[in-house]
């Protein structure tokens, strides 16, 4: 399965998907189920990057990373649309274990998002209003009610929103199960194959693209960029510029402890995602950077551990004596304008993409929508203009 010197199993395909993360595997699954000829290329192994190294949380509440820093008013329409997308993602996850016929480890633990300052509390109320408009169930809880419902939270917190639908799935099994079902439906998956270039041949009958790979050349009618953190590089191969950057994220893991609380805990103003897993370990992250290094892919950073854990301790003081046993890191893709990149390029017909931040929560949904669009462009609804592949290139 590993080894980066694999040869291509075939030399042409209708659709070539680049990237074996959750987006690529989900898309391969939906297309193959509909009978499309699909070949998925993965440089390393399936699910070894962000899709398998994130903490598996469902981020359904509007979160700090969706806010531009100007409050909710400046981005009202985008945030409302995002909240509606969350609702749809929520419904999809509800049925996904059944659809893929496997245990994805979906747990609806509920989720808190806490506020420490008056400003942050105001933001909580604003976002609660937006979520209500979109149909997501959240509530703002303050004062004595918060103390009694969440006695583990620090006494100085001013309030928190609660979203019962939040929770997590097991990131180690989701993409691999999509991949397995895709293969059963006829998709070909080639690992250890790196794409090194894409040539456009608009008038060729054998396919509009020649894809240069470490395992040989390949012809395809359509190419889908599901390369996440590396999607910018892939877009560049056909002359498109994606508004993306990638960052390593630091995560801390503790020893096992008896159950302290069920819900996931996030912070509206500081970087924190905290949860206690089924086995009792605490996973603490939320957007702290990793260093750059040549000898390890994404080294974890002491300063990130120190800063991240300080926030955790401010929010749940009883974590003080819980021991951290390990840290890990993964890479994440950020879009500079907070919107995903999904659909078909107008400038490069036949070139598609499915790239999103918070990809674990949203990629299954976006991949399904993209598959519907690719299978039946006439009837499936299109994507909002802000998702466009060409938005920076124009």
């Amino acid at each position: 399965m590993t080894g980066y010197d694999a040869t291509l199993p075939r030399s042409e395909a209708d659709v070539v998907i680049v990237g074996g993360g959750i987006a690529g595997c989900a898309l391969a699954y939906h297309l193959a189920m509909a009978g499309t000829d699909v070949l998925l290329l993965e440089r390393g192994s399936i699910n070894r990057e962000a899709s398998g190294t994130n903490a598996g949380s469902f981020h359904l509440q509007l979160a700090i990373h969706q806010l531009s820093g100007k409050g909710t008013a400046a981005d009202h329409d985008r945030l409302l649309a995002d909240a509606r997308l969350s609702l749809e993602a929520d419904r999809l996850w509800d049925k996904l274990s059944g659809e893929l016929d496997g245990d994805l480890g979906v747990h609806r633990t509920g989720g808190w998002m806490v506020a420490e300052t008056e400003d942050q509390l105001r933001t909580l109320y604003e976002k609660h209003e937006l979520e209500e408009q979109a149909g997501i169930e959240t509530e703002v809880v303050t004062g004595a009610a918060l103390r009694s419902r969440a006695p583990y939270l620090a006494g100085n917190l001013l309030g928190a929103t609660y979203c019962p639908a939040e929770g997590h799935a097991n990131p180690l099994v989701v993409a691999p199960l999509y991949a397995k079902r895709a293969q059963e439906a006829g998709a070909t998956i080639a690992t250890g194959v790196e794409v090194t270039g894409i040539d456009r041949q608009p008038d060729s009958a054998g396919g509009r693209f020649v894809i240069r790979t470490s395992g040989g050349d390949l012809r395809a009618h359509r190419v889908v960029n599901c390369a996440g953190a590396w999607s910018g590089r892939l877009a560049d191969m056909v002359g498109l510029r994606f508004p993306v950057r990638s960052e390593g994220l630091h995560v801390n893991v503790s020893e096992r402890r008896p159950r302290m609380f069920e819900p996931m805990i996030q912070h509206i103003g500081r970087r924190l995602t905290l949860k206690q897993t089924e086995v009792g370990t605490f996973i603490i992250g939320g957007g702290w950077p990793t260093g750059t290094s040549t000898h390890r892919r994404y080294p974890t950073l002491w300063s990130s551990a120190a800063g991240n854990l300080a926030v955790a301790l401010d929010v749940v003081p009883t974590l003080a004596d819980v021991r951290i046993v390990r840290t890990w890191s993964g890479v994440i893709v950020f879009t500079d304008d907070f919107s995903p990149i999904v659909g078909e390029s107008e400038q490069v017909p036949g070139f598609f993409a499915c790239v999103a931040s918070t990809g674990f929560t949203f990629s299954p949904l976006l991949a399904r929508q993209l598959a519907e669009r690719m299978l039946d462009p006439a009837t499936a609804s299109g994507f909002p203009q802000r998702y466009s592949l060409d938005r920076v290139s124009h």
Partner: protein
Amino acid sequence: MHDGERYAVLVVGGGPAGMSAAMTAADAGLRTLLVDERPTLGGQVFKQPGLGFAVTDGRPLGAQWRYGHRMVQRAEGSAVMTAMRTAVIDVEEQRDGWNAVLATDDAHTRTVFASRVILCPGAHDRPIVFPGWTLPGVITAGGLQSLVKTQRFMPGRRMVFAGSGPVALAFPAQLAEFGADIVVALEAGPAPNAADVARLAGAAAGNLDLLIDAARYRAGLLRHRVPLRYRRIIVRAEGDRRVERVVHAAVDADWRPIAGTEETVAADLLCIGYGFAPSLELLRLIGAGFDDDEALGGPTVRRDRWCRTTAARIYAAGDGTGVEGSKVAIDEGVVAGLAAVMDEGSLPEEKAVAAAAPALRRIRRRRALARATARMYHVGRGIYGLADESTVVCRCEEVTAGDLAHVIATTDDISVVKALTRAGMGPCQGRYCSRHISAMIGREHDIALATIAPSTPRMPVRPVPIAAIADRAVTDPGLFTAPSGNP
């Protein structure tokens, strides 16, 4: 960013190698910090009695203990600064040196800066997985040695010793001297033959002390009527909630048990001593290059003749670089210490070369002896094949060999195995199970053990409380803030 403490040299590990490296650096006038997890210097081999014990007569403790005691006293009287009960849990490279995060008991961690770091992490018992290895009453040679050395305590009455290499002779002899009832001592390797004796004689120059020790240990076993049986290996430990019986068998040249040769013996203590394995966590974390030699404990950090690793400004010495014993460790400590002093510009090269020459000469002689014993002390691959399906391999996460085999059938990537089984995710961070899992992968996919990449090394290398790490002075670095110019 460090907390204001700066050193020219940081030495990690207070055993023979660390003490000698630190004294070499400090004697040359360099500001030197020596860090060790234990309350006293000396490491495992020169381990001093625990707190609350006072030695009134050093004679019964043996020549090795007395030698170590003198070395500890010399280190304590030197200019070396020490931080005891302190673990280095992370190191991060800086432009002109390294930051090291120090954890002392449960106090808040502190970060110190050092221009150069000498890693002398020592070794631990080579972890061996066999049915019953997690039963109470099974103990490693190092663990039992610690109990005896620091607490004067023997946790059983009838003991079986199973092991190989120099330890298999020395350790039962020492324990018999201490009063242990050793039912049988099993050595997986072969008895010395005429050719071995000739080779030993050829390598005797400069090594007489070790050979005399070996002869004394053998005589001790005879005196205490401890049967020493060659070419036999532990097969399993049995009993109801603790060791009651030990099953052993004859092995072939690669240490695979031979069917029909099993014998069962009643015992309540099983001591396991199949040699030692280097402690690699920090060496892995700095990204050092490795070679592999099972006779030296498995992965061995790659170094030049000055004990420089492939990582800038990092040196390594002692059993943590390949297990060769305390004498080599002391000499390597001198060489690494001199190298750090020379590289800091505090000693001209020709003087460093002259100063290191005696130590390098002694190391060469020891290695000649190691070559002479290679046939007897060869570690067979069968050592990693003793588990059956239901044997727990990762005891932190309770993952069995069967669970692992199921996943290993589909991948040769240890990180994937870890992710799918949780093996190696517990507090010991895979110290116990990772070599065994690598060997399983090697067998299943027909890959040499030496070429199987370990899972990604991660800090902290010891578990540390959240309150000891948390630091409010570190603020959000703003990863999620869009670059300027965007909405």
